[in-house]
């Protein structure tokens, strides 16, 4: 019986390349298709959930189930922070026998060797479609542990009409001595945010204020200011002058009431929905909100502009970046492996990436960047064309990942309360960063870096 089972697995894996190279009528723009007859197979999966992610599942999973006869059982669907905690508990409990899980390039290094190497499971021709650098970032210890669905990097969204208003232009010039235009530097961003603010009705800007979100924002400002989080030996150096300038930027905006008072409780939903409510002038955010910001559902629909991340005094732009991905776990039974590969294919293929890109998410396939730009141009959608050209430039010139080390999240949990302490005035900027650096030093020593 066991021999028969193994024989069937081997046969199914051998037939995978044949089905993989067949172009599918449902997805004519996909050069590689991974279908199969998965009747009787139920794939247990855990996915990142929420408004930006669910529409893709609602479209693709029913197609996959109808075409293959397989079933997808979603064991868990939650925010990535919650999913991260759940995966860690699953590892501890030895409960990692489900097949497919959402992942992220910033998180993947923490989980040890629970993922399968996708080289050999996913056809090479399909992998060749992805931006090579993004695949590099998806690789841990030489193993491709995740397949990227979309990337994220942030740029600065603004309300166009307030920048076009002649009265605003005159007032701004009189106060700051230069013409009002969307900010090109961090200093201009701060000045303009203060200029626009009229709390509690209207705020100049906002930032995500807790957990890994504010750590990442601080990180990219440190880079823009010409600094770094760690030196080459992985010792913390973010408490130097560049780091202090970066943190001072957050503090100044908070003290000037140019950001909402509750900003330290904000995460991505709060900033995105806040900007769409028309009460914030400048909002640093990813492209995934783009279509929504400019839609009729948003109070600023049709009045949204976009510029690259302003430059810091170090002559660099922020570009904290990562990719949302899917992984297959080692615990996924061999007989379900082909079905799992098929599922992550349908969630990351050309069709899926075009679906997501229409909302503003950044593709991870080279060809999709070109195809989405052509589609938007053909539709005469200048807003989305501008979105993709701006984000394309950021991905090419500015994007950098956080250190891809297992200590990223523990490091974040050390530093973010200290950043908050400086912002609310419980500590000075220097004091907060020194305290964070001291604790980080212990963390890195314990992890064996030095």
């Amino acid at each position, binding site marked *: 019986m066991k021999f028969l089972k193994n024989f069937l697995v081997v046969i199914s894996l051998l037939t995978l390349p044949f089905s993989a190279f067949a172009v599918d009528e449902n997805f004519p723009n996909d050069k590689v298709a991974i279908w199969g007859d998965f009747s009787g197979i139920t794939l247990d999966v855990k996915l990142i959930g929420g408004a930006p992610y669910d529409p893709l599942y609602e479209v693709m999973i029913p197609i996959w189930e109808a075409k293959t006869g397989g079933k997808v059982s979603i064991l868990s669907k939650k925010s990535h*922070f919650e999913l*991260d*905690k759940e995966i*860690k*508990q699953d*590892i*501890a409990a*030895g409960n990692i026998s489900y097949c497919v899980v959402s992942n992220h390039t910033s998180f993947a290094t*923490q*989980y*040890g060797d629970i993922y399968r190497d996708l080289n050999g499971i996913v056809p090479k021709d399909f992998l060749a479609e992805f931006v090579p650098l993004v695949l590099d970032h998806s690789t841990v210890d030489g193993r491709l542990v995740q397949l990227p669905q979309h990337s994220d990097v942030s740029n600065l969204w603004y309300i166009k009409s307030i920048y076009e208003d002649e009265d605003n232009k005159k007032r701004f010039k009189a106060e700051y001595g230069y013409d009002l235009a969307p900010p090109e530097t961090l200093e201009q961003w701060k000045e303009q945010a203060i200029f626009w603010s009229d*709390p*509690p009705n209207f705020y100049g800007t906002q930032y995500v*204020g*807790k*957990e890994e979100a504010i750590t990442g924002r601080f990180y990219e400002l440190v880079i823009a200011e010409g600094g770094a989080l760690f030196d080459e030996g992985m010792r913390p150096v973010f408490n130097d002058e560049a780091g202090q300038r970066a943190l001072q930027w957050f503090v100044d905006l908070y003290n000037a009431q140019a950001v*909402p*008072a*509750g900003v*330290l*409780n904000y995460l991505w939903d709060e900033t995105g929905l*806040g900007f769409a*409510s028309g*009460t914030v002038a400048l909002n640093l955010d990813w492209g995934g909100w783009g279509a929504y910001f400019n839609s009729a559902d948003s109070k600023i629909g049709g009045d949204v502009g976009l510029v690259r991340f302003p430059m810091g005094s170090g002559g660099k732009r922020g570009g904290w970046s990562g990719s949302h991905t899917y992984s297959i776990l080692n615990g996924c039974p061999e007989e379900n492996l082909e079905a799992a590969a098929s599922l992550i294919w349908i969630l990351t293929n050309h069709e899926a990436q075009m679906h997501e890109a229409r909302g503003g998410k950044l593709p991870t396939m080279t060809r999709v960047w070109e195809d989405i730009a052509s589609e938007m141009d053909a539709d005469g959608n200048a807003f989305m064309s501008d979105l993709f050209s701006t984000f394309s430039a950021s991905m090419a010139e500015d994007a950098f990942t956080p250190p891809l080390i*297992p200590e990223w*999240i*523990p490091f974040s*949990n050390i530093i973010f*309360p*200290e950043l*908050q*302490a400086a*912002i*609310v005035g*419980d*500590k000075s900027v220097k004091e907060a960063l020194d305290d964070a650096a001291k604790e980080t030093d212990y963390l890195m020593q314990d992890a064996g870096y030095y």
Partner: protein
Amino acid sequence: MSRKFFSGPFILILPSILAIGFVIIIPLIFSFYTSFTSYKLTRPDSLFNFVGLRNYERLIDNTKFWYAFGRTILFLAVVLNLELLFGLGIALLINKITWGQRTLRTIMMFPMMFSPILVGFQWKYIFNDNIGLLNNFLYLFGYESAIPWLIDKYLAMGSIMVAEIWANTSIFAILLLAGLLGIPRDPIEAARVDGCNSWQVFKNITLPFLMPFIFIALTIRSLDVGRAYDIVHIMTGGGPAMRTELIWTMIARIGYKDANMGFANAMSYVSIILSIAFTYYFFTKLVAARRDLGQQ
């Protein structure tokens, strides 16, 4: 000996012993053991990396933990006292009502029916500085500044206390109402005949009768509040800048987000001291109160 061991009564309680063993004793022993290891959730092999008292030694120097510990004691003290006061007030008022008491008792229990997660979201929305009900209500009366309820050094903890008290005061009210309904009428009527006013009746008769119920309620709630997590996690996550960090939000972050379960378990065992201290104190008081009433 063996005949006694396998006697009928023992066999009858064996399922309970096994259930308690598997559900309580074994996990307790296991977690206590892990507090002496460098156990990380994401590295199951670290379970066998024995580090002796290192986790406990680090705890002693960890000022953030002791601040959270102190904050938890403050939280316990304020919340328990206010819940007791409000619960007692509500119970006394409902006890006076002769019509519709059952309906009111049911309505009073509504907050207890919400899950703590839902209570957290509900109060997070009410206290939101931008779109929250409270600030927008204040704007109606000409207040022009957004009050950062969940950010301010004092207001943030106060806001969480309000949510906790709103959700759980009815536990006190129900327990104390049960006590009030059980008080014999004779001593009260005798006191009134002797010329005692309402305050004297309450202080000298009603309250002493209620004291055992009060200490039972305090014991139950001190264990609950000492483990407060859900509402705090949802409303502030312990922040900002650890201003609302209680021991269990801290332990959860270190245990689950940092995956540093060995250290988190060491924190948990030190934190249990708090629960034991409160429980011991209230039980001592309970025994004394029962003794005063002439009960065993």
